[in-house]
Every structure is written in C-alpha cells, then in structure tokens.
C-alpha cells in the first residue's frame, strides 16, 4: 500500500475511534479521564497524518 493511502486510512481509523467514544458515552457524552486522553491522542495522530499527507501529495 502506498504511503499516502496508508495515511488516509490511518486518519479514518483514528476518526472511527473518536466516533466510538461518542457511541460509548451516549447520550450525554461525559468522557472519563482516560477517554479524554484517548481523544487528545487520536486528534494529535490525525493532525500528524494529515500534515504528512499534504507534504506527500
């Protein structure tokens, strides 16, 4: 798989993990400390993957 394709999927998968956080915490979306940490981690990964993607293409 080409690097740019891998980056797109990695970003999608990180978004999917964030989507799961929403699903796990319905309806009020009150995130625990661990869930908030995971959210931050995933957002950072998305930023990193997208920055790399822009440089590549």
């Amino acid at each position, binding site marked *: 798989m080409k690097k740019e394709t891998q980056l797109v*999927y990695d970003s*999608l998968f990180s978004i*999917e*993990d964030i*989507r*799961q956080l929403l*699903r796990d915490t*319905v*309806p009020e979306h009150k995130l625990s400390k661990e869930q908030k940490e995971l959210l931050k981690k995933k957002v950072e990964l998305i930023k990193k993957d997208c920055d790399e993607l822009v440089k590549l293409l």
Partner: protein
Amino acid sequence: MTETRCFEEDYININPLQTGGKTNSDTRKSIDSYIDGYSVCDFCAGSLHKIKKPDFEKLLNEISQFLGCDETIFTNGCREAKFAVLNSLCEKGDTVLIDENRHYSTDVAAELAGVKKEYVKNNGAPTFHINPEDYRKRIDETKPKLVILTHVDGNYGNIVDAEKVGKICREKNVPFLLNTAYSSGRMVIDNKKIGADFIACSCHKSWGVGGGTLGLLAINKKFDDKVFKTSVDYKKKILQILGCSARGSSTIALLNSFPSVRERVKKWNVEVDNAKWFIDNMISNEGIQLLGDYPHMHDVMHFETPKFDEIANKHKDKGYFLHKFLDKKGITGIIPGRTKSFKMSTYGYSRKQLEYLYESFLEALKL
C-alpha cells in the same frame, strides 16, 4: 447526499431490531476498504464460503465450532437461511410445524416453498409462552416434514427451551430448524446440547455486523447433500443460495466482529441482569405491565403501557408525546405515535445508561 444518521452517536437507541447489530470500531474500520462492489471477490475461490483471502473458509469453520454444528455457509439473511432449508428439504404440499411466536419471514419463506403451515400455539396474554412439550402432540397430529422453532421471538423476547424441542424432534425423527436471530451472537448456542439439524442466524441483528445484511446457515453433515447440493453445471455453486450469497462488506464485518462476539456471549448474564433490573423498575409503576415471560431472561422486552396512553389522550402532542419527549432526552428507538404498548431492548448498555433511561421514562410518566 443522504442525511447523516446519528442514532448510535447521539442517542441511546433501544430499537430491539438494532441493538445487537451495532458495530464496534474495528468492524467499521474493516469495512472501509471493502466498500466497493465485489471487493470481497478479489481472490475468488469459486464460491464465497471457500475464499481464503480474506479467510472466510477459516471463519466459517470457527463459527461451526462456535455453534456446535458441522458446516456453515453465508446467506443474505436469516430468512434466506430458513428458506434454503425449507426449499431443499420439503416438497410442495408438505407440512411444516412452526411456533406461533415466529417472525413473519418464517411464514413467507414457507409460503414461497409451497408448504402447508401448522402451528404450536402460545398460551396467550400476558406471557405468550411456548411450551416445548406442545411440539410432541402437534408432531403426532400434523406429521410435519420439518419442525421450526423461534428460539427467542422478537415480540416478547421469550426464550424457548430448544434442547427440549430438539429431544422431541429426535424421538419423533423429524428434522429440526432453529431460528436463532435473537439468540446466537448474543448468548451461547451449543448445538451439541440442542441437537438441531439446522441453525439459522442473523448477523446484522445479533452478531454486531454492519455494511449490509448477512445470515448464516449452520447444518449437521447428514443433510449436506440435500441443503448444500451444488449445481450440475457449476460444481462449486450451492443451489439454495444461487451460487454465492452476501457478496459485500457485511462478510468482512463478520470476520472482524466475530472475535468480540465470541467474548460477548460469555457476558450474557450481565445483559440478563440489566434487563431484569430495568423491567422490575418499569413494572413497579402503576399502568405499566410486561408482556412475555417473567422472570424475563432476554434484553428484548415488550411493555403494555396504559398509563402512557392515558397521558397521550390529554397531551398536546397526543400519541407522539412519548417519542418527542424521549428524543429531547437523547433516547430513540420507540415507534413514533405508540403509547399503548412498545417493544425495546436494553442490549449493550451499561447500568448507568439504563438508569438514565429509566429516569427518563419516570419523567415521562409525570407529564
């Protein structure tokens, strides 16, 4: 573009059709790259259930072991699995014996197969219980070619003792088809104990599968020649599923949901405890009664709710008041306009979420 759906992200969704088919993140990730038409057929082995990349052959072998059956194939849904058995085993005009709590698709499959339907009655309101022993008498009376039992029905969430029905069918030497649309994938199904000849499953209902519909037909080897008979001209193509069935991402979804399904059935007792807790709280209120077996042993439940109907008669939103109120609380899944009775499911929700749900119903009772 179609409006984006957010029932699972923004709401507690208690629609009994949908709770067991919710996908986890790994399942959704896996579907992404297999969303294009026929992408599961990149490395076609002549028939879908024999494909090794992705390894469907191994998956289906593992599922056969998981269910305690000899062989399993994909079908487009549970109803197609039932039809495959009916169509291959019965001649037109034969009789099949079915429980009264069956899903309509059992009747439709039987009708299409051209068979005569006879029923084992439930005991009526309020429990609508199917007594397994009634199969004995009805088999003697109707001489069926096939017996069908809905293990857990979708109206009341009643569980019928399939082992007892299986034993009766073996004594009477009648083939036995077990519809597990609301049981396999949620709870342990051990066919080594049940002794059914055929097990029909619904993966989009109870195995956490998305990306389309998907069923499974698991059988005992002695019926292999009849039910899994292949075409004369196309030796790898099973006739009853028209060669290959679900040729889309739902099979990939199952490949990726199955590890979690294998684990979640071990925690079925938690789901039952949650369902019991919720029911006991609901029926402690005047004007709310449970329809179906009590104590209740399944997450699908049906309440008769004259109290909500009484409120609807006075409320400005009439019969829609309950749906509208719950929607504002972030709860969905009850059919809009229904207040006399409704079905719901507690499957997959934590006790904390169910407490929120119950408190919301309590608030609705005060409207």
